[in-house]
């Protein structure tokens, strides 16, 4: 039997309980990043891991719930960025399904793709809610620099977002991929989509 389609997923109890854990891992990633004063957010490790393990739908739901919970417990504005998190979950799930996570170099390329997609989705939100800024010093300096040269707001805002998002997403994909590779079979096998069972 071949692989089932990546969209056909059954809401097994295992994939359902993976969602809160993914949100928790996101939270911890963000906590460690600020503990170590790293200039990255690293707050989507859980979303990406759940996408790699259980597919794009579970990843997308993890992303959405992550921002809803974060919006309701810490930062209200992050509610609107739930859309970006859904996009990240979907993209990583699809890339994992078509086999892009085979090597470290492919993982870097995947990180680039995820970062670009996250930036494309976030830019309209930044323009609508923040007049184009991201709230990150480096990104906003670029935004100010480009705006001063009368570059259209959409391009300036996209550049602002890319500078923030792409390095963060590449780092997050690499960390998630590294963890995923190291996970024992015992933990990953319950989420596998193929029906094939091999005796050891």
């Amino acid at each position, binding site marked *: 039997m071949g692989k089932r389609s990546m969209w056909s997923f059954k*809401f*097994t*109890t*295992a994939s*359902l*309980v*993976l*969602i*809160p*854990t993914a*949100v*928790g*891992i996101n*939270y*911890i*990633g963000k*906590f*460690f*990043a600020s*503990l*170590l*004063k*790293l200039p990255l957010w*690293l707050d989507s*490790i859980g979303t990406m*891991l759940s996408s790699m393990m259980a597919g794009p739908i579970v990843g997308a*739901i993890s992303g959405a*719930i992550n921002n*809803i*919970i974060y*919006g*309701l*417990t810490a*930062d*209200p*504005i992050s*509610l*609107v960025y739930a859309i970006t998190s859904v996009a990240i979950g979907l993209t990583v799930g699809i890339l994992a399904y078509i086999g892009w996570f085979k090597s470290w170099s492919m993982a870097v390329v995947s990180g680039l793709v995820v970062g670009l997609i996250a930036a494309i989705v976030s830019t309209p939100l930044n323009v*609508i*809610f*923040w*007049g184009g*800024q991201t*709230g990150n010093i480096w990104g*906003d300096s670029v*935004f*100010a620099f480009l*705006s*001063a040269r*009368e570059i*259209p*707001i959409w391009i300036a805002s996209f550049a602002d977002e890319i500078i923030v998002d792409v390095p963060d997403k590449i780092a997050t994909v690499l*960390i998630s991929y*590294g*963890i995923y590779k*190291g*996970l024992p079979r*015992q*933990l990953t096998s*319950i989420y596998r989509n193929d029906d094939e069972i091999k005796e050891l």
Partner: protein
Amino acid sequence: MRTLSLYQEGDSIIHKIDPITKIIFVLITILIPIIMGTLNSAFAFLIISLTLVIIAGVIKKVLPIVGFTSIILVTVIIIQGLYYFNNRTPFFAIGTVVFYKEGLLYALEIILRIYSIINSVSLLMFTTKPSDLVEALVKKGLSPRIGYVFSSVLQIIPQMMSTVDTIIDAQRSRGMEVEGSFSRRIRAFIPLIGPAVISSLIDTKERAMALEVRAFNSRYKKTFLNEGTTFKYADVMQVSLISILIISIVLRFVH
């Protein structure tokens, strides 16, 4: 059991309003100022949501969130005041740096909108018990399984954070340093996140089995532990909030 929640006990009228009405209120405070795109609508919603926050008695809790966002909003004023693409009319100047009227007004609109979103979301999170919120959504037709996911997140995060403390202590006792050069700090990330992820995934597998043996997948109709008090004016308020939204969309397209 510890849960992640910002709920503040209280008996104000806002506390008595049902969660669904509050969610609709949050949605319209986000949407209407964007649909209308006017300074007046943004200002009106800020006043309304601020008044409600004061009535609910949670204004002190909202201030830190407002303060945190204000730092970013200062940069919005500077950047838009200087470089907004419609800038025509000089407003004031500091030395040779000229701030323009159009940009400052645009920045003001952004600020009013952001503050009203913060106020309305705060209203929801400070005056609603998370468990009531989830239960209200499930009664409205949200899958109880997704409802479980929401309430479970609020319990799992404090649990995982206590595991994190153990992991930090363990790795420190093995000589890991969390301060120092950038490369040292980034190298410390993996030995911290790795064990946290693995231990939480092992818990996940156990939790799945524990749920299964308690008939989590049963297809029988779920019942509720709490009957819950119904809010008398919920329907009236919800219908009027949604009508306001529809009117604003119509107004926008008429103009």
